[in-house]
């Protein structure tokens, strides 16, 4: 305090450390995994499985089961946090350091392309090939990058349109039909439709759904943005128009999954777009006002079911793993029918095997399965691109402005297009 000048170097070092340490881990980028991908293909021995927080306690019993059967190839379960962003950054740090200790990794569908392009994921072909014929096609697409499968679909997720059976006799098949039913909501003095429109990953999901459902697409087959189309415009305009005329209530701009679920359960919404997890809560929570009147349907599209965005996780083998033969066996075990069934019953995680959706015992337990199957079959993976972090920001930023009416749908889409072009241009 006497001579604050002494503070200066200390303060400087402190600030620099804090602002910079976050990126201390990164060095150059690996230029593809050619050499690493050839190594350890026949290796067997103990491996590590890395996944985000095991909230519904499904992974531990599975790992125990595996370990009992494979005493020489034991799996250690490394549990990450439950925050997707932190899981992503943790995996990046370990792969960047070529950590051989991250043998099998649970990868969010949207990270698959990025990690594959960085050369971190073992291509699942030749010796490492797996059978994907029984899996739902969109889930396999989500693990595929440039025509090669890099990750095995493990769990999936698709959107469901929840509606009030007491107010709407039959679910709307198309967006226009749903908007036509908004007069019912008005008559009952409740909001008509809501999804997740807060500026976060959920907005990318909702905006992509709107664009895909009206026949557009964010990226074309070659991964180039294709947003300056009439279809894309019609899709985003659906949301912007509904928000402007009040069919989407004003507060929906602050909704994430939980806020929108709460509003629907409180009886304040006629239609809700959300994930399957809502079902259990809406029929079992004491405060829920929609327990007995909960209807479920596929998302409405242009003239049939809409295109849901795809959620879920894929399993990938690290190119740096020393025991890839064990890793592959474990990966097959974790995507087997038995495991998938366990996931569905124990953790309410949507299976990737089409046959399970028709399993009567399972449907009795999880009544949303038939609707979810339609949803996933019609689903479009979120843009599969190694630049996903930049693409999702571009979509969020511009879709948010467009829905709020701060800019026109055309200029929002053209800015989205330019932002994605710039992100994928590199430097």
């Amino acid at each position, binding site marked *: 305090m006497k001579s604050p000048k002494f503070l200066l170097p200390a303060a400087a070092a402190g600030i620099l450390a804090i602002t*910079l340490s976050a990126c201390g881990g990164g060095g150059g980028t690996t230029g593809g995994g050619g050499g690493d991908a050839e190594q350890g293909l026949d290796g067997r021995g103990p491996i590590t499985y890395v996944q985000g927080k095991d909230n519904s306690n499904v992974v531990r019993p599975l790992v125990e089961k595996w370990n009992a059967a494979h005493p020489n190839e034991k799996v250690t379960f490394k549990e990450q946090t439950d925050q997707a962003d932190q899981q992503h950054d943790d995996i990046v740090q370990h792969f960047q350091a070529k950590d051989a200790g991250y043998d099998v990794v649970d990868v969010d569908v949207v990270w698959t392309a990025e990690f594959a392009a960085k050369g971190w994921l073992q291509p699942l072909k030749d010796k490492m090939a797996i059978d994907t014929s029984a899996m739902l096609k969109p889930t396999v697409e989500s693990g595929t990058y440039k025509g090669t499968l890099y990750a095995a679909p493990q769990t999936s997720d698709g959107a469901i349109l929840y509606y009030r059976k007491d107010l709407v006799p039959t679910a709307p098949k198309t967006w226009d039909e749903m908007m036509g039913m908004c007069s019912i909501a008005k008559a009952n003095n409740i909001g008509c439709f809501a999804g997740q429109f807060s500026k976060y990953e959920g907005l990318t999901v909702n905006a992509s759904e709107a664009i895909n459902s009206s026949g557009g697409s964010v990226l074309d087959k070659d991964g180039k943005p294709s947003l300056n189309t009439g279809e894309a415009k019609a899709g985003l305009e659906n949301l912007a128009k509904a928000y402007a005329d009040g069919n989407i209530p004003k507060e929906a701009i602050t909704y994430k999954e939980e806020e929108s679920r709460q509003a629907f359960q409180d009886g304040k919404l006629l239609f809700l777009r959300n994930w399957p997890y809502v079902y259990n809560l809406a029929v079992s929570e004491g405060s829920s006002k929609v327990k007995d009147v909960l209807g479920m349907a596929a998302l409405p599209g242009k003239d049939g079911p809409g295109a849901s965005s795809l959620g879920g996780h894929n399993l990938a083998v690290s190119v740096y793993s020393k025991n890839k033969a064990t890793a592959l066996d474990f990966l097959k075990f974790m995507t087997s029918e038995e495991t998938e069934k366990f996931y569905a019953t124990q953790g309410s995680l949507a299976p990737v095997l089409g046959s399970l959706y028709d399993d009567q015992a399972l449907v009795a337990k999880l009544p949303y399965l038939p609707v979810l199957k339609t949803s996933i079959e019609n689903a479009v993976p979120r843009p599969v691109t190694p630049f996903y972090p930049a693409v999702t920001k571009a979509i969020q930023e511009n879709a948010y402005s467009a829905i709020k009416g701060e800019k026109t749908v055309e200029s929002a889409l053209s800015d989205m297009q330019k932002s994605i072009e710039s992100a994928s241009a590199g430097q």
Partner: protein
Amino acid sequence: MATELGPTPVKSPASGGTPVHHGPKGVGEDNKILSQGKWATWLLAPTIIALAVVIVYPIISAIVMSFQKDAGLDPVTGLFTAGGPAGFQNYVNWLAQQCAAPGGGTVACPPGTLGGQFWSATATTFFFTVVTVTLETVLGFWMALIMARTFRGRSLVRAAVLVPWAIPTAVTAKLWLFIFAFEGIANKLFNTSILWTGSEWPAKWAVIIADVWKTTPFMALLILAGLQMIPADVYEAAKVDGATTWQRFRMITLPLVKPALMVAVLFRTLDALRMFDLPYILTGGANNTTTLSILVINQIRQGFNAAAALSTITFIIIFLVAFIFVRFLGANVVEQSGATGKGKK
């Protein structure tokens, strides 16, 4: 001249450490001092090595990275390839808000890219800093004045005031997120239907309110420490001389607490310039609440090297503010002790 001479005699007894050190030396064991110096070096070495590993290395590594291009995609293999040296390109891109153009070269960053948010994030950061630090100083001072008085239950009040500061920022942000939800307490209490996190000015105020709630106690405690260093007899003397409460506050409390106050303001300013968790959780950076730190974190996910450049820029900005502050603060402290010295005589 006279005022400059003034502080010098005041200073040497004040910095009492030096004479005390000279004491044993005067006793006459120079060797002991020397070996003590050696000892000190050895004892400090582990700390310095630890600091070098956890601070110096990452800093140098980050600065080196900031002069590298981010990885680009090889269109044929679909794999990322290392970008190579970039010179000052990363820095230029941020400052001029230039983004890569599809055909090579750069264009002005379109809305939706992180590059286009640099100056707005800088403005937002400074706006938050100025408003929150001002409010926290005023409220903190007021709280400190109350806590400095003797009254029943004072220790309880002091402990209670600390509670917001003791709660982790992320938890604070979640708490306020619930309060500011559309169906939350804030709207219910005031019978309003404001979209707190969904429109620009309410979102900014939401961040400011949460930040002030959380960090005013810190301010209050630092100021309280300063207040308690003021001897009571100074006030008594002033009272005897017939000074009013306002005069006592302005002529005694304010100047004497100023060094502590300035350090508190400096700390809070540097802290506020790095603000991250509160807006990140409360608004996700929407509605113009993206601070520089949020931008850095977002950029890390899109490219390490550009992020390293941005954090270096952030560092330089914060360093400059600290530098101006300390220079200004240092000058002020000298001037002030001269003035009070004169005033007393």
